[in-house]
């Protein structure tokens, strides 16, 4: 079995120490593949004097040049011809630009094994039928986002009795239908089968608030779950404490905290980080995380805030084996959690950018652009 498939077939998804050697071998194969098949990537490694054939230890991976997601949003680079990539999916494009990642067949197979393994441990893969409420996009041929594809994919983890989507595609755009969604939740509460909510935290929160304001409190059958993922996106200012979300979910839907599951991931890093019972994102064997200093980009180690460098050998279609997102995070030792999972966990605490401080000068630039000024 090749190292990548062996890694994604590893029995314990959180035995990071036990998979170090396998991970390094899988990374070397992946880097060598991209080096040989993606000319732009080869130039990047060459210019950094990095030899992918020389990857022999975790410290070599630390030195591997990473690609920021902003780079992938600006440039489409692939290591395979299009016909060999059955799925090409995009990031959400919150700022109007998105990356487009090509997935190879074996990579998708690895991803499937990962999802079944990680969600299996959380009791999410089940033969019991469920009603699904997706607080995200209804699939549409024009929607290529990873988040829409995975949300739909998650409804296949049990037999689906029904699927209600909060964001429907009408007149060429997605529009939220929270009232219709809330009505579907009330309908589902009369079913003998559990309901599962999948989607963005913001829309979940808006729906819970709407139901609460209208006194639409229901008791959903045991086994009902809320699966959150995709971040707060444009609603980051409305972000609420997790405890507020849990309290409202209990009040409105009678869903306990342990049945609220959050996941973290990115189109450019399709690894499933599923929170533990203490709501921490432990690093699975399929990836490694390095926190980098915001000024020097050097690795920081545990307990310090920096840019999040995510590493995985899963994908051969696009060279995304080491990427840096816009997230700012901290890596914690497993003992700080105490849930029993032995791998470190990642805490996301903010985002890179000037979003918190809107400068008047930046605003002026926006006006110039809107007015068609030829800013060069």
């Amino acid at each position, binding site marked *: 079995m090749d190292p990548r498939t062996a890694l994604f077939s590893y029995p314990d998804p959180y035995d990071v120490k036990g998979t170090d050697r396998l991970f390094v071998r899988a990374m070397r194969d992946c880097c060598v593949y991209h080096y040989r098949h993606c000319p732009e990537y080869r130039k990047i490694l060459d210019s950094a004097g990095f030899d992918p054939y020389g990857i022999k230890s975790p410290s070599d991976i630390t030195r591997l040049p990473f690609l*920021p997601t902003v780079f992938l949003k600006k440039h489409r680079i692939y290591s395979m011809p299009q016909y060999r990539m059955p799925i090409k999916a995009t990031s959400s494009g919150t700022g109007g630009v998105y990356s487009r990642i090509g997935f190879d067949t074996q990579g998708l197979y690895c991803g499937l094994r990962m999802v079944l393994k990680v969600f299996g441990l959380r009791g999410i893969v089940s033969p019991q039928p469920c009603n699904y409420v997706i607080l995200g996009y209804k699939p549409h041929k024009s929607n290529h986002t990873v988040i829409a594809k995975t949300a739909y994919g998650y409804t296949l983890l049990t037999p689906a009795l029904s699927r209600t989507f909060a964001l429907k595609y009408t007149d060429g755009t997605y529009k939220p239908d929270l009232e219709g969604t809330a009505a579907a939740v009330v309908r589902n509460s009369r079913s003998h089968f559990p309901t599962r909510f999948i989607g963005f935290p913001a829309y979940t929160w808006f729906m819970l608030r709407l139901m609460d304001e209208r006194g639409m409190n229901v008791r959903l059958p045991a086994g009902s779950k809320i699966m959150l993922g995709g971040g707060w996106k444009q609603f980051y200012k409305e972000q609420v404490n997790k405890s507020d979300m849990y309290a409202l979910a209990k009040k409105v839907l009678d869903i306990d905290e342990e049945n609220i599951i959050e996941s973290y991931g990115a189109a450019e890093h399709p690894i499933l980080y599923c929170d533990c019972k203490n709501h921490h994102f432990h690093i699975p064997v399929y990836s490694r995380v390095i926190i980098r200093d915001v000024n020097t980009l050097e690795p920081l180690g545990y307990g310090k805030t920096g840019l999040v460098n995510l590493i995985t050998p899963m994908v051969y279609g696009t060279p995304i084996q080491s990427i840096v997102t816009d997230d700012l995070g901290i890596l914690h030792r497993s003992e700080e959690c105490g849930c029993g999972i032995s791998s470190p966990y990642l805490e996301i605490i903010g985002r890179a950018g000037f979003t*918190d401080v809107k400068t*008047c*000068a930046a605003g002026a630039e926006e006006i110039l652009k809107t007015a068609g000024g030829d800013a*060069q």
Partner: protein
Amino acid sequence: MILFGGKIYPTDRQSELLGILEKRINRTLAFGNLDRETVISALDDLAVRIALGRYDKLIAGFAPDDVTRYKNAAITAMKRENLETRLAVELPDNIMAGRTGSLIHSVRPLGTIMHIAAGNADGLPALSVLEGLVTGNVNILKLPSADNGITIKILTELIETAPEIADYIYVFDTPSADVDAMRKMADISDGIVVWGGETAVRAVRALAPAGAKLIEWGHRLGFAYISGYENENAELTALAKHIAETGQMLCSSCQTIYLDTYDTDTLDMFAEKFLPVLERAADAYLHTDIGASAQLSVNRYCERLESAAGFSRRKDRHTLYGKNCSITVCRGSTLELSGMYANVLVKRLPEKHILPVLRRTKGTLQTAGLICSPEKRDRLTEMLIRSGVNRVMRAGDMSASFTGEAHDGEYPLRRYIRNTDTEIL
């Protein structure tokens, strides 16, 4: 947090408090009388206490690196002498009030002013309210999301000094997305002061009641213009200090440095000369915003990757990197925003082209920092002003505030009053 009638309330009482706000304000408008002297005394008193260091710890808690700068800015804005100068310049009694025939002219407050402040300069929301108070208005302030708590602290201190001011200040930390709440505030208001870009202004126009006066303070860009020197070393050092100290975040901050030349080699020589100067300044005023630092590092790293991968991003510019700063030399001359935080642009702008080039961005011009030989100063100043620039400063003083100066070409206090006429028998 909400400040309402001199008391602090938690955010979740917003709806209840907004429900009684109109009645409360109407009572104040009908029977209240905010004496200007009371406001000036209270502000001056606060300025004295700030100068004595009474609030040093508090200011350090909000802005640990900038205590002296914030102290000085607050004192300048609040002390009696400066307030009286402002009133004399902006609202001269002999012009604004008086009698013509059987008409008595007088200056009255606009009534109720809603302030929607930007979050880029700490203390700005409080300053906006202060201007409303000095002109006798009732003030409703919607805090910016980036407010760090200092606004309510300043206003609470002011109310403690002069409790009668309590009925003239209402502060809400409403998020901009809460349109219903914003509309309730706007409905009560005679004027709406909005600090921000076109998006903010458009949003405010949409919720403003018909007839409400919109007082817009829009976004602007600043630049430096260099055509020779009086004292090269001192002037470039002052310019670098200004760039690093303001983080290029203010309307008056220098985004682009223009050189009076046709020659691109001159730009390169200047960039090489200026980079170490900028580096020293950037080191002295290292900004602490981790999100911005991260973004800048990623941007720089990405540019290097693009160049390595053969994606030549822009052929019309190249960047010299220093520690915590950079200088990008550009071929074009249009005024534009820099990468901020000591990442400045350098462009050509021969004297003959000043007006046509700057007119392209006329709606956003504010401050020019002029560095030139003495014999050129008058001529270049005149040309910059004719081009639409409102402030021409020494390069190091681009963001300095001066008592009695106009803001974006206008006197703010004049926008917060109305002129009334009464016919007498």
